[in-house]
């Protein structure tokens, strides 16, 4: 039995909730993996902040065109139906509520839906990119994250201690151990790893979860 889901597996789980034809923005890094796991028969249309809608997979090494990159500055490809546009139009799509889903990483998510994912505090160089726009733009903002930090501290918390990316914006968390919704300012457990008891999960979580009678099993293939 898996002790916890790998990032790849978390990405797989998040991908299962994306409808055919959905317009989706995936955050830089870990969330980008979600694109690989679209269920058969479904095709989402991916948006990247720097002005492409409907881009395709990474090109083969050596055939990159560096004018054709995503927000993470990785080379991508076009496919039938791709469109290019400038940054103001790109963020009109974001801010105007035209994206169906944005899936982002997180340092902390609070039970009130607050998200902290851009700054670990005053040290170092701050960088925000498009995250603050995405959290207030997409119809649904989901987070994919380890359930706890490397030190074992909860990332699902009562109130964020780090600088916020957005207020009350997250509605679903796909973690290494569970799928948790945010409703009415509370965490609501939807799915958990089968081997894990509710008490064990609650102990890893920084705020009390609402637990339905029988939370579904979080079952993800080996990847």
């Amino acid at each position, binding site marked *: 039995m898996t002790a916890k889901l790998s990032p790849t597996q978390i990405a797989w789980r998040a991908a299962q909730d994306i409808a055919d034809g959905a317009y989706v923005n995936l955050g830089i890094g870990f969330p980008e993996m979600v694109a690989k796991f679209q269920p058969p028969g479904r095709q989402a*249309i991916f*948006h990247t902040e720097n002005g492409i809608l*409907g881009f395709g997979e990474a090109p083969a090494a050596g055939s990159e065109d560096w004018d054709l990159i995503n927000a993470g500055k990785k080379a991508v490809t076009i496919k039938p139906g791709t*469109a*290019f*546009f400038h940054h103001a139009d790109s*963020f*009109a799509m974001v801010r105007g509520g035209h994206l169906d889903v944005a899936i982002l990483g997180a340092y902390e998510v609070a039970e009130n839906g607050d998200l902290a994912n851009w700054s670990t505090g005053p040290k170092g160089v701050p960088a925000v990119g498009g995250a603050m726009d995405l959290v207030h733009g997409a119809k649904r903002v989901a987070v994919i994250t380890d359930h706890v930090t490397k030190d074992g501290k909860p990332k699902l918390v009562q109130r964020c201690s780090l600088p916020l990316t957005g207020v009350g914006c997250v509605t679903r968390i796909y973690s290494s151990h569970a799928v948790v919704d945010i409703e009415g300012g509370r965490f609501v457990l939807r799915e958990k790893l089968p081997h894990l008891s509710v008490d064990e999960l609650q102990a890893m979580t920084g705020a009390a979860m609402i637990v339905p009678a029988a939370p579904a099993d979080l079952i993800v293939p080996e990847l």
Partner: protein
Amino acid sequence: MDKTLPDLATAVGGIDDGMTVMIGGFGGSGAPIELIHALIDRFVATGHPRDLVVVNNNAGNGHVGLAALIEAGMVRKLICSFPRSADPVVFTEMYLAGKIELELVPQGTLAERIRAGGAGIPAFYTPTSFGTDLAKGKPVEVFEGRSYVQERWLKADYALVKAHLGDTLGNLTYRMAARNFNPLMCMAAARTVVQVSKIVAPGSIDPEAVITPGIFVQGVVEVPDPAQEEMLNRANARYPEVAE
């Protein structure tokens, strides 16, 4: 994922009483005549939709298209910049008779309010109309020593749009100055339906040439030889045609 609609009736089938409907075009160029006429057909057949709030730059010309929609009595209020035309008799008579409301908006403000609606900008400041009757009741703020009027976004339940090519994902191109308000209205409506001269497969439109990306479009319907308002009016057309 195919956004192709089977026919015009389906395209306008979801427009209900009291909705706000943006209608593209500037005068006749870019005016989705066939979509408008399909909406009139529904009204003639069912008595609905009515009490519409319509957003367009103008108020129609002659007795076809937007003028016919107004003449049919379907429009409660018009939001526009220039309700004059070569033949504005329909709107003029109804307005002077108090049968239709008018919200007059400077043209650039109208365009920007629609874009703001599509871009998630609830309000912005413009120098336009400062100190005039059209700024009455609106907040004014001074930036860098100059006075500006606060204007609010404009959104719609539906947009009826005319484009040139459309692929099945909703990516659009336009013909010359028929572009005008159409791309903006695509952005600002909860549901945008577009009549295109030809529906093509994804990939048929160069990604550089897409003017409206498909994310702003919910449905496309093919109208191969769209009528041009100017030509209908030169022929003294009416819609619906009057049986005499």
